[in-house]
């Protein structure tokens, strides 16, 4: 398991995108393809954010260390956030710039989503080895942006609903749990395989 090449994670991360493409080509995407594509891309981004945030708790709880895959998970999340925004601007809003800008300024759920996306962009841009070395100790501090980014992403997801669905509450619960684990004292759980 731990010898699985990281490239496999990158390839696997493309499977959900492939699935969307397949649904579009086969007609299985439904009668409202625009919203379906946009929402699916956002949901996939949430999954990768949650998986990335689960790496450390998993190691603490079970000793299974997937740290070497975490960058791939984070970059996959960033990739789907980018596609989600592209689907919004291109397919949904048809680049109606005035309406998009007006919405961005006026609508809190869009502000939350866009703030999250900007943080994720910063995280993705500084995820390479050069940045890690150049930033040194500050890299760890900078990458705590993951936490507000994930919180805002879930907030954005819940905020656009007319009524919060059971799935929405489940996401809120999972993300709150993953973030709350960060509040535990350093060194809890299993730090080393027995």
């Amino acid at each position, binding site marked *: 398991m731990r010898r699985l090449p990281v490239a496999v994670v990158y390839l696997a991360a493309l499977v959900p995108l492939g699935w969307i493409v397949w649904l579009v080509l086969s007609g299985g995407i439904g009668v409202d393809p625009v919203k379906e594509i946009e929402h699916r891309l956002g949901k996939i981004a949430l999954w990768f954010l949650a998986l990335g945030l689960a790496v450390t708790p998993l190691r603490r709880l079970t000793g299974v260390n997937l740290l070497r895959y975490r960058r791939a998970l984070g970059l996959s999340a960033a990739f789907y956030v980018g596609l989600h925004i592209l689907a919004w601007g291109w397919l949904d809003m048809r680049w109606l710039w005035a309406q998009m800008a007006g919405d961005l300024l006026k609508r809190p759920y869009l502000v939350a989503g866009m703030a999250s996306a900007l943080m994720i962009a910063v995280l993705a841009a500084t995820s390479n080895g050069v940045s890690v070395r150049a930033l040194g100790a500050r890299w760890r501090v900078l990458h705590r942006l993951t936490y507000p980014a994930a919180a805002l992403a879930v907030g954005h997801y819940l905020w656009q609903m007319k*009524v919060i669905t059971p799935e929405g509450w489940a996401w809120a619960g999972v993300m709150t749990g993953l973030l709350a684990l960060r509040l535990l004292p350093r060194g809890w759980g299993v730090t080393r395989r027995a």
Partner: protein
Amino acid sequence: MPRRSPTSGRKPWEKWSEVTPHSVWLDRRALMAGGAAMMLAPAARAAPRDLVPNSRKDITTYNNFYEFGFDKGDPARYAGRLTTDPWSVRIDGLVERPGSWPLDDVLKGMPLDEHITRLRCVEAWSMVIPWIGFPLAELLRRAGPRPGAKYVAFETLLRPEEMPGQRRRSIDWPYREGLRLDEAMHPLTLLATGLYGAALPNQNGAPLRLVVPWKYGFKSIKSIVRITLTDTQPVTTWPALQPTEYGFYANVNPRVDHPRWSQATERVIGAGLFAPRVPTEMFNGYAEEVASLYAGMDLRTFY
């Protein structure tokens, strides 16, 4: 040898009308009926004119009917279990002849016709639906509004055994809607019993639903069991849930945004992946007919 037809490649249970533009379908139906024998003459079409109905598949698989779940596919998946026969409708409140009637008696003598209208959802999408129905005014006149009546309240069936969404208490069931009496008496306000020339599918609000084409779709309450005339503005589901986001009037208005999204433009369902957004029309294109109902009212206050 199988003949190639426009339906080839479709699953056998999918009906022709599900994939056929309405005009072609209507012609075909007219042909089958021997041309002159069409039961339903196309009704006098109100503005907006030249509306091209969505396919039956669009109309019957993309529904907001939270009694069956939050996903737009849920109603088509779960509404089949709803018992719509027997069905009765109670008409009460400020009317001369209150009572509860079996659906057949409600429909007796009502002028069923085809009415093609555009439905504009508060979520900023729209589709065009060929309803079968009659003006609500006909039924209200039969019940006889008493002089003090100013509003009409509607209620959807409450039956959690058959409506899984009602087992969640995220909404205060049953679903409630309402109109001012003059809105309810307007000839564009319909009670629908069918679409595409057939009985209303359950997911579209069988067996009896409201259609108010100049208002956001949530006003067009489905599966109605009770109609009450009142002298005070009735409490309705969405404004009760989110008073800052949804109003009693809910007239389609491109200049009054929903707090969380713009209402200036809409996506046309069925237009394809790369279709443009289209500008939303005042009163959903029915301004000529209904704007006078709101003369002197600030539509920003009464949203």
